[in-house]
């Protein structure tokens, strides 16, 4: 039920993001979702791609510092308050959200939100029990 995400350390220098894209592109890796967290001097790029091993290798070969993290991909109903309901549910279980980012599924127009929780397993259990759709890694990589 978990999705693997790749994180890349970036200095806040122009051209570094473009360089990651170039490296992934020339390795034939497709990006499914992406977000950047940044501070005044560095950033962390988080991506979900169609081929983790290929992406990790290409980035390491180009001297980027990378790591893999497990995240949870949740399908959010396309109704007002859809996300609010999910967050309320998690709060009740005292699961904290470390960070999250969204993208749109092309086939259904549903929003997919990638979550990094401080307790992924507890979150998955609570969400599943509430009947919320959690996407398998394989599905997300091939969206």
């Amino acid at each position, binding site marked *: 039920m978990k999705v693997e995400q790749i994180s890349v350390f*970036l200095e806040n220098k122009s051209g570094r993001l473009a360089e990651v894209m170039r490296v992934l592109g020339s390795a034939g890796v497709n990006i499914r979702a992406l977000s950047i967290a940044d501070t005044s001097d560095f950033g962390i790029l988080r991506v979900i791609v169609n081929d983790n091993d290929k992406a990790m290798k290409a980035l390491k070969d180009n001297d980027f510092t990378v*790591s893999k*993290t497990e995240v949870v991909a949740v399908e959010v109903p396309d109704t007002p308050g859809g996300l609010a309901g999910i967050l309320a549910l998690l709060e009740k279980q005292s699961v904290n959200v470390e*960070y999250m980012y969204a993208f749109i599924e092309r086939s259904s127009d549903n929003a997919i939100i990638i979550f990094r929780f401080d307790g992924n397993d507890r979150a998955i259990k609570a969400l599943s029990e509430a009947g919320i759709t959690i996407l398998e890694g394989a599905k997300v990589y091939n969206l």
Partner: protein
Amino acid sequence: MIWNEEFETLPREALESLQLKRLKATVDRVYATVPFYKKKFDEAGLKPSHIKSLKDMRLLPFTVKTDLRDNYPFGLFSVPMESVVRVHASSGTTGKPIVVGYTRRDIDTWAELMARTLTAAGIHKGDIVHNSYGYGLFTGGLGAHYGAERIGASVIPISGGNTKRQIMIMKDFGPTAITCTPSYALHLADVARDMGIDPAKDFKIRVGCFGAEPWSEKMREQIEKIFNIDAVDIFGLTEVIGPGVSSECIEAKRGLHVFEDHFIPEIIDPETGEPLPYGEKGELVFTSITKEAFPVIRYRTRDISCLNPELCICGRTFVRMERITGRTDDMLIIRGVNVFPSQIESALMQIEGLEPHYQLIVDRKNNLDTIEVQVEVNERIFSDEVKQLEVIEKRVVHDIKEMFGVSCKCTLVEPKTIQRSEGKAKRVIDKRQL
């Protein structure tokens, strides 16, 4: 193991009388043959005959780096050029280098001293020595080479550079000892890992002699762990002879035995020039007492150290100098506080996962000194969460503040962005316009 039992374990009294005899001969020699020294002695009203005991050393004038530069290239040679069989030069990046000469006997002395150095590290006949010190005008390569040959080891004269090829050779030739700068050792390990080679398992190296740049105890631990070897600190400088001035023994690995039958070490206060007693930190000064072509009298190294006269477990009677903890000219004065890059390095190495790939950027903004510590991010400290990385930055800032009382900024940078030279790492960029 001791290469020259007779001299390296001389009782203190016998050593001192030998030193005095040799010192007098050196003083006579430079006064008679080197106009620079004669002029300096005359200006100080000093005659060679005034040196009657080792204590009289303090009467001798100091020699500083600019004196050597001013006499470029051969002005301080004490023998005619036809007696000089070799020259070397310092790796000065600015201006003219410092040129030193060797007679045939000097080369022989040097090989003897490097044989002592390698033997002190436990290297012997039957070992294969991978010598990555640069060959050429730099003294490192040929110094280690002659020493290794003298003890009967097999030498791989690989010199510096072409790291991937070096790793192939280390894997295929199976050297049991390595000689290089400590930063190059770490660079070798980095590249080896990138090639899928584990330096601890895939090499047969047992021991390394590392020198030619300051390094720390933490860096030693790291090198020993990465390669699964003993890492021994060796010391020397071109102006004195090259490597082979002092060396640690593998038995203690605590301080470098100065080869006192050839060099007299002193520690002085860098401000006043007054000699300091054993145990006190100050500037290291050397007088050579057996060299023929290029003797030096009270040469100020600008290296910071102290001397320990305690008898060592290895049996050598020579005093031990503490590993170099900085340079008088590297010493940064940040808002009036003396800061040595090596101290910042040891603070960084206390933090789990950090590697000694760092650079200090010193600047002055609004008349206030600022210091920025750039540290490379590796996989051990990298996290997908911003706050985890900020914890590391804050820890660096906090630890340095604790240590020096100086506030700094810590910036994490991408791996391999801080320049790794094949030889010496550039640690400090001082942008202050004073």
